[in-house]
């Protein structure tokens, strides 16, 4: 009997807590899929509040309320409030890096072996959104690099299409030297940066 009463009281308390928190605007920091935690800062005319620990929350009563630190949310509370959004949250896109033999359109042997895993991933994730991106290093003529990397990306697109991927879901672009894998100064030859990236979303 006592147990039932305690259960009922707990349930009431939980409902009250849920009711309270459901009236407020809430921001909760979450770890990403690799467990990394960044930070958010909520700002309005009344002030600002930072959260930089997993589960840490910021509450804002309304437009004229000051952003305030709120008690950290447990996993259960997070699931109760955001379960529906979390249930449809897409997995992070998968990325593959392909390398070519010097000044050619031939994939290195290691990269050629990645074609099958790429196709498998496209099918497993039922992807309808694929980017094929040419990247260059910072050496030599930017124009030559850019043209070569774009052509290599187009070549990879063709390889995928030949293997049955719908061309309508593939977007070919070049990031030039704007998205280096290995950060270098300008005019540095870095074979690791001269790559084609396939992103499967």
């Amino acid at each position, binding site marked *: 009997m006592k147990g039932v009463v305690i259960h009922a009281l707990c349930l009431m308390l939980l409902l009250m807590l849920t009711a309270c928190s459901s009236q407020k605007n809430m921001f909760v920091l979450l770890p990403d899929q690799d467990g990394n935690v960044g930070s*958010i800062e909520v700002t309005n005319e009344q002030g600002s509040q930072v959260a930089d620990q997993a589960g840490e929350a910021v509450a804002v009563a309304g437009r004229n309320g000051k952003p305030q630190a709120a008690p950290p949310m447990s996993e259960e509370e997070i699931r109760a409030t955001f379960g*529906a959004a979390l249930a449809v949250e897409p997995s992070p896109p998968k990325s593959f890096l392909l390398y070519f033999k010097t000044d050619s359109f031939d994939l290195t042997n290691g990269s050629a072996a990645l074609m099958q895993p790429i196709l498998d991933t496209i099918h497993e994730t039922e992807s309808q959104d694929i980017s094929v991106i040419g990247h260059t290093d910072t050496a030599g003529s930017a124009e030559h690099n850019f043209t070569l990397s774009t052509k290599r990306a187009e070549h990879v697109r063709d390889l995928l299409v030949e293997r049955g991927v719908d061309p309508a879901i593939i977007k070919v672009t070049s990031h030039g030297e704007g998205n280096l894998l290995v950060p270098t100064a300008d005019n540095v030859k870095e074979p690791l940066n001269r790559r084609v990236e396939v992103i499967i979303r």
Partner: protein
Amino acid sequence: MLRIVTFVLLVLLTSSWPVFAADDFAGRVKNVQGSVSVKRQGMMLPAERGMKIHVNDVISTGKDGAVGIILQDNTIFSLGPESELELKEFVFAPDTGRFSMLAKMIKGTFVYMSGLIGKLSPGSTTIETPVGTIAIRGTRFAAKIVEN
């Protein structure tokens, strides 16, 4: 003469709109559940898997709805029921060093995961809400916006 020039210019400007619109491709719908729609240029379109999302689209979910969207820089937005999100700006051009992402969480529940814009150009991402602006440093967070 001036009138004719103005007219020609106007026609040229107006007719080039679809070109700009095509450039506004920002991402695609990945997961859909229940009723979800996309408001685009005054029209309500039912959201479906694989559907393209453009700048200025307003994505909204019904009572039973939820949707997950991935943008071209790998930013991920997930919306729970009775939620509304407006994508106000999206520029992802690493080759020319141009980045910006501005979205408004209008109401409902959200999970946000930052993408390459957050990594290559920290500070270029802004999330607006009716109760404040969120500055993000490479991260994932959830938000609940109630209208008041």
